[in-house]
């Protein structure tokens, strides 16, 4: 029997994203030079949703990029199963941009480290901020999110799964106990 606990439902996700959108605007004093980069795969959909919210609030069209961090991972050497490489698509210059990196779950911080390395290869942003839906703790690198949907203290043997309509057909965040 797998233990599953829904910790966030569709409304909860939507409210968090709305709040994050306002926080982004507040912190950056508007949308000037602002862009969003979603990390494959969950971050991509969240970035798109944030963009919609920001557009409806400010009435401007923000550029959104997609970042696949596979080629920058530090665990390729150790990974038993090679992750499928996805396309990176950042069709605009990052020079002098304010980049908001978007991911679904912040965990060890290693993905974000890889993402920042990748971004730097694309240009020289003015600043990089991080938006995540869930921060589950257990950081292994000195990385912290600027915008957090929900802080979710978790055990190491649990996995936190963000399910999104675009890929899973449902919006919810669940905790699964891997030990079962």
């Amino acid at each position, binding site marked *: 029997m797998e233990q599953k606990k829904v910790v966030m439902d569709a409304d909860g996700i939507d409210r968090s994203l709305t709040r994050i959108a306002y926080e982004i605007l507040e912190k950056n004093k508007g949308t000037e030079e602002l862009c969003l980069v979603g990390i494959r795969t969950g971050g991509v959909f969240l970035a798109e949703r944030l963009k919609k919210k920001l557009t409806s609030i400010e009435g401007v069209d923000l550029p959104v990029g997609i970042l*696949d961090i*596979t*080629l*920058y991972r530090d665990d*390729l*050497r*150790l*990974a*038993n*199963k*090679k992750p*499928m*490489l*996805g*396309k*990176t*698509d950042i069709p605009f210059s990052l020079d002098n941009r304010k980049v908001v990196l978007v991911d679904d779950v912040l965990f060890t911080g290693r993905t974000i480290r890889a993402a920042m*390395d*990748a971004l730097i*290869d*694309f*240009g020289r942003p003015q600043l990089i901020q991080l938006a995540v839906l869930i921060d589950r703790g257990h950081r292994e690198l000195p990385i912290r999110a600027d915008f957090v949907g929900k802080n979710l203290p978790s055990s190491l043997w649990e996995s936190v799964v963000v399910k999104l309509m675009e890929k899973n057909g449902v919006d919810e965040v669940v905790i699964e106990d891997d030990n079962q």
Partner: protein
Amino acid sequence: MKLTNKDILGIKELSVDEINLILDTAASFIEVSTREIKKVPTLRGKTVVNLFFEASTRTRTSFEIAGKRLSADTINISATTSSVVKGETLIDTARNLEAMNPDAIVIRHSAAGAPHMLARMVKQSIINAGDGAHEHPTQALLDMMTIKEKKGTVSGLKVAIVGDIAHSRVARSNIYGLTKMGSQVIVAGPAMMIPRDIARMGVTVYNNLAEAIKDVDIVMMLRIQLERQQQNIFPSLREYSSYFCLNRHNIKLAKEDVLVMHPGPINRGIEISPDIADGPYSIILDQVTNGVAVRMALLYLLIGGQR
């Protein structure tokens, strides 16, 4: 999903799933080569040796660029078989290389089976960059990638391969690959250039260009090796090009949206007329671009992380 073997010796040994994995991975690598900083750290600290026993600027450069864009250290070794006692080179070079512990060895050799021999001798991943008239798997993969990019699929197509089939490793690898992926392959050339029993590889054989390219989606022209004339394989270039050169007249026999490919280097005016090589049907330069991506994909899949 990962590759079954430590080596890429030929398309014959690859499954359809493996071919798809390589093509999909390669498609993702296209973007890296369009960046301003065309380099990712994926293979940092890995060493790739390009061991070329046969002259080849294009393939060697392509592998070198692929390795470098993945941050691997690439080392080129050009060896000639003629200057040393035959045979000793490969075995000794292989053992020496193995002792230096590279991660992958890319080998081009004029003798069929040389990469297979190397693969048996060393623990490193071997990538066949062309062995004699046997296989040239990376060329076929980049060809299939280019076809997929332009046609959206590699299956259900009619592909004519024209030229000296007997001496062509490109032909063999593409025959394996395209038939595996569900396309129909036609080979054509004068009888002396068609190897015995090739129909058993699942291809249709023609001895004239018009029949071969009728209603095809792709025409793949092969380079005519000038030295074959001395070997009495064919009487003259003049005659060959009068009957087998793809030009703007005979190309009308193919489908309207036909694509023209060539593994290069081209003998302009011999197997392909300049207006075709540079014309709208030609995707020859796309092949070259995709070559880097395919080779990046192979290096990534073979030595990027644990196998």
